[in-house]
């Protein structure tokens, strides 16, 4: 009572749960941290794609006759003039055959050979996102000048990519939810084992006047400590993993791949995981003890 640290009435510190629960929680938090980071990256990636393609159009014209120069192509020039004069268009960039060949080089090889292929002619158009041109009218006007042309606002492609990103986000959220559920089930099981192992001490506490909440407090404090310890271990393991993933992605240097750098508030979400794990274990232990004791006489 007065000497040193006061021991708990229920000796949970000596239980096997003290050794295994932090490890299990650490694994759960590790998985949750990766899933959460994945969700945040997918969200950022979707936003980047959305932002990058918003206000962009690509006009694709059928291939010109072999040997003809872009600058001398009246159809290409006519479409470019039309686009420039259209209200809502900010800039027009005619992509010359060389630039198109350079884009295709990673897939098709030497640019000299690409030049022999019937490549479509491309015009990159930037439009005002606040006041975009009437796309239907624009398509009609372009087709009138260059039959067989295509005015692509990338919405179809973009919507598929956004769907994919959202699906990744949802899957990550489901993974986090399942991890929390699994942790809660595990803590409930361990708590029940603790109740069974210490039934005599608990009965004694009741007989000398302890409320259920007093007994529950013993378990919830113990679980809080184990949950926090496990959460910190899990987070400390997850951080190097995220750093490694970021390093590997940066090495690829591709605009299509996600950027794994997280903003401060996203880091704070990850740092809160151990706190969340401690709260989940604490609340689960408390509810389990109170529900179990309520069934006793």
């Amino acid at each position, binding site marked *: 009572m007065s*000497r040193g640290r006061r021991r708990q009435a229920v000796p949970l510190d000596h239980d096997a749960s003290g050794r295994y629960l932090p490890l299990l929680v650490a694994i759960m938090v590790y998985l949750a941290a990766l899933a959460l980071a994945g969700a945040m990256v997918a969200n950022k990636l979707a936003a980047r794609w959305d932002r990058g393609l918003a206000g962009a159009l690509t006009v694709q014209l059928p291939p010109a006759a072999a040997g003809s120069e872009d600058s001398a192509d009246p159809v290409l020039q006519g479409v470019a003039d039309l686009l420039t004069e259209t209200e809502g268009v900010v800039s027009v960039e005619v992509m010359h055959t060389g630039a198109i060949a350079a884009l295709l080089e990673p897939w098709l090889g030497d640019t000299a050979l690409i030049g022999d292929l019937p490549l479509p002619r491309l015009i990159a158009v930037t439009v005002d996102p606040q006041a975009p041109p009437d796309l239907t009218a624009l398509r009609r006007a372009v087709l009138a000048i260059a039959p067989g042309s295509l005015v692509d606002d990338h919405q179809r492609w973009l919507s598929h990519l956004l769907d994919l990103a959202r699906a990744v986000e949802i899957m990550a959220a489901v993974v986090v939810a399942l991890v929390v559920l699994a942790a809660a089930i595990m803590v409930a099981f361990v708590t029940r084992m603790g109740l069974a192992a210490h039934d005599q001490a608990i009965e004694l506490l009741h007989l000398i006047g302890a*409320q259920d909440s007093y007994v529950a407090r013993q378990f919830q404090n113990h679980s809080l400590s184990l949950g926090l310890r496990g959460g910190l271990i899990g987070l400390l393991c997850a951080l190097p993993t995220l750093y490694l993933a970021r390093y590997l992605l940066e090495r690829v240097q591709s605009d299509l791949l996600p950027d794994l750098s997280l903003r401060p508030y996203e880091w704070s979400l990850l740092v809160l995981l151990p706190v969340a794990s401690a709260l989940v274990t604490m609340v689960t232990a408390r509810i389990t003890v109170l529900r179990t004791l*309520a069934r006793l006489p």
Partner: protein
Amino acid sequence: MVRFEDVALRYGNGPEILKHISLHFDPGSYHFLVGASGAGKSSLLRMMYLAQRPSSGKVALFGKDVAGLSRRKTALLRRKIGVVFQDFRLLDHLTARENVALPLRISGDTDSRRDKDVEELLIWVGLADHMDALPPTLSGGQQQRVAIARAVIARPSLLLADEPTGNLDDRMAVRLLYLFEELNKIGTTVVIATHNEALVERFHHPVTRISDGQIWTVETVAQGEGGNRAGAADLAAGLGADLGATAGRDGS
């Protein structure tokens, strides 16, 4: 204080352990429950300290029917009851001092002055040198004394003791029953279950005899039997001046 009306008790689908039990203990009274092993004394006490509910009949403690009590109110009622269990029920990971202080911790009494009460009580029961000992390192008699100290530390209104002197020599047994008398003098109702007839005869209190799960006789204290009390007092006085002085302090 304690009222049983036609109470019966059976465990599960087994036979009735207790039958047609009707009794009434007034506040501030002192009673012995006497009977052979297996007569039903412990089961009767279990119902008194609310570890067991009757199969039929009515049990009332402190004027309240225990059948309708919520868990919270039951816990609060238990705090008014001190129990000396036959098997001591000490927590092995806590020291003697911590075991004795447990009822105070549970009731939220964090007054550090109570540490002194705990120490005085342990000194009184002869465990001055074992305050920080863990129960497994104590003898049976020492454990029993820790259990007794724990039962009385919170000055309960009702003290129930199940064979509280079973592991003690006569000298310590009388000494502890004298402690119970002192508590009784300041208003605690005391009920002691024992099979030790010789010890019961030394004291001047009503005796309820139980056999085969039924109350057979209730021997009230007859007038003019003051010799018994004098005998107990003499015996207690014979234990030495220190006992009288310590008991007097405790009683005050």
